[in-house]
């Protein structure tokens, strides 16, 4: 059996406004990614896309506790994290569509959504790479005494790459204000994580190797997620150093757009879809006395937001040819000779 302790938040004390905000964020993220998927099927979103359908509670829990100057690092599965950090949805959608009004001018694409102005410090497509980088940003925060906290999201498969281990050891030894959040969706790409990992809980069971508390949380429980986010971000902010959180979750679809995910047992998928964080928070909120019409209104508003963002994104032109050679260097160009 695992030695990891489950994080218990006693009675979640999250107040109503925050829970409604988490609900709104999850619904917007869900509808946004569904729209992305539709546009993909229409051939309008090209290349690849990695959706986080079903995993939204994790990003939303952290988004609800972060301050404006905090920094988030995420992976190629980072549409939701970037959106919930406050990046404008239309600019994200435009980036996925490869338009000039894209958040990266069409140069980044689905796997590299970034909005530095909102502290969304990038989506990284080499597994594990962003973990040392996030530690470095936390190092700068500590040295410059900015009070910032850095949150770094990654997958279960990432726990088996060297950068994970280098970053954790480094962050602990230098006591950096960074929270590492493992979204354990049970699969690294197409392979079940348990079949390629020495321990049962890929992050939590390794926490002790870095003198960290093992934290295992139900990543599909928005209230628990929020409580863990608050606790770990507070620790980092108060100078108590890094945390490593393992949030169990599941992606509803395949690894990327090309993946029908036939390798997953049907019962497993059904079991996890039944634990979808959005309807479960909705039921809880209603049980706690929130009017269903309030939630319906949030749902409808989210639909309008996604429709408007899609229209605005699609109105954008393709990038101007001249931008091919811009922004390699800080002088705005890409010259390498005189």
């Amino acid at each position, binding site marked *: 059996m695992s030695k990891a302790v489950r994080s218990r938040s006693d009675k979640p004390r999250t107040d109503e406004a925050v829970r409604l905000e988490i609900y709104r964020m999850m619904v917007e993220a869900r509808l946004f990614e569904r729209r992305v998927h539709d546009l993909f099927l229409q051939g309008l979103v090209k290349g690849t896309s990695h959706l986080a359908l079903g995993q939204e509670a994790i990003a939303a829990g952290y988004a609800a506790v972060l301050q404006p100057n905090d920094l988030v690092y995420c992976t190629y599965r980072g549409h939701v994290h970037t959106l919930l950090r406050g990046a404008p949805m239309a600019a994200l959608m435009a980036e996925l569509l490869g338009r000039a009004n894209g958040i*990266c001018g069409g140069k*980044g694409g689905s796997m590299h959504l970034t909005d530095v102005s909102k502290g969304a410090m990038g989506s990284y497509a080499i597994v594990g790479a962003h973990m040392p980088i996030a530690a*470095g940003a936390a190092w700068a925060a500590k040295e*410059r005494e900015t009070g910032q906290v850095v949150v770094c999201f990654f997958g279960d498969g990432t726990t088996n790459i060297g*950068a994970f281990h280098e970053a954790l*050891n480094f962050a602990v030894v230098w006591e950096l204000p960074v929270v590492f959040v493992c979204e354990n969706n049970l699969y690294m790409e197409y392979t079940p994580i348990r079949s390629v990992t020495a321990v049962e809980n890929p992050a939590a069971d390794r926490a002790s190797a870095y003198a960290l508390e093992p934290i295992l949380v139900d990543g599909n429980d928005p209230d628990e997620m929020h409580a863990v986010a608050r606790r770990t971000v507070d620790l980092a902010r108060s100078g108590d150093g890094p945390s490593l959180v393992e949030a169990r979750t599941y992606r509803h679809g395949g690894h990327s757009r090309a993946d029908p995910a036939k390798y997953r047992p049907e019962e497993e998928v059904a079991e996890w879809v039944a634990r979808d964080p959005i309807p479960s928070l909705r039921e809880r909120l209603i049980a706690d006395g929130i009017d269903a019409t309030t939630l319906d209104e949030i749902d409808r508003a989210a639909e309008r937001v996604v429709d408007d963002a899609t229209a605005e994104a699609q109105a954008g032109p393709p990038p101007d040819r001249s931008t091919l050679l*811009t*922004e*390699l260097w*800080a002088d705005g160009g890409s010259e390498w000779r005189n």
Partner: protein
Amino acid sequence: MAELTYREAVSRAIAQEMERDETVYFIGEDVAAAGGVFKTTEGLLERFGPRRVRDTPISEQAIVGAVMGGAMNGLRPIAEIMFSDFFAVCWDMIANQIAKTRYMTNGQVALPLVIRTANGGGVRFGAQHSQSVEAWAMAIPGLKVVVPSNPTDMIGLFAAAVRDPDPVIVVEPKALYAMKADVPDGEIVDRLGAATVLREGSDVTICVLGSMVHRAMDAAERLAADGIGAEVIDVRSLVPLDTQAILASTTKTGRFVTVEESPRLCGWGAEVASIVAEEVFYDLDGPVVRITTPHIPLPSTDALEDLAIPSPDVIVERVKASMG
């Protein structure tokens, strides 16, 4: 003027920049308390304290990742990678992350950072501690690369690298650490992308870098004794590259030779030679010549290593042969 070794110039360069700008930090393995395995960073810990000059674990990805993240959040950090061969264990950070992030984000991210590293052979360390990897870095869009060949350049080019808003790889030929030269007093700041003509000549242009500069200068001296005027150009900066200086000299002399410490295929000189061939072909009086290490890993023993790396003898011989 004061006589300094190249290794002393390294610590003076770092100190000059740390003194000037409190956001400059310096990290690496054994760089603080021990003063560096090549003793290039002695005294920095005492002078700037344990926060700004800091020892790291043996975690090259974390070291390079940390300076990238640090640069994203307000520092101008310097990382030491002890041997440039170790770039191979953090190449993702350098080639995929640092080099590409500004472009991929359409300029949202600036990365004012420096990675300095001990490069090249000549010290009998064997194949995994002797490589010349400047061409690896040069091949990746988004990295600037300089190779100082003497103590004054080490300070001046390093200062330019630290002040540059883009990531710069400073490649230090470890065979030169013991070299001594007079260095001007006071602040020294050079600029990236400027080659220097170290010796003028009218018969052949010898284009060199790093430790090969000194061998080419020896060779030029001997060629002069035989009546051949060699113009020696220290390239100094691979990215940005001072093609104007190289092309102007080649147009003048009509002959073009590179001397490269790196193995043959895709060495920096291949790129420079192709530029010469493409742009001043009709000014050439003969084929371009590349003098390189053979395409092998470097052997350890002095007898073989000396055979591998271009020597003044070989340079003289090849230049004469090319002139018919």
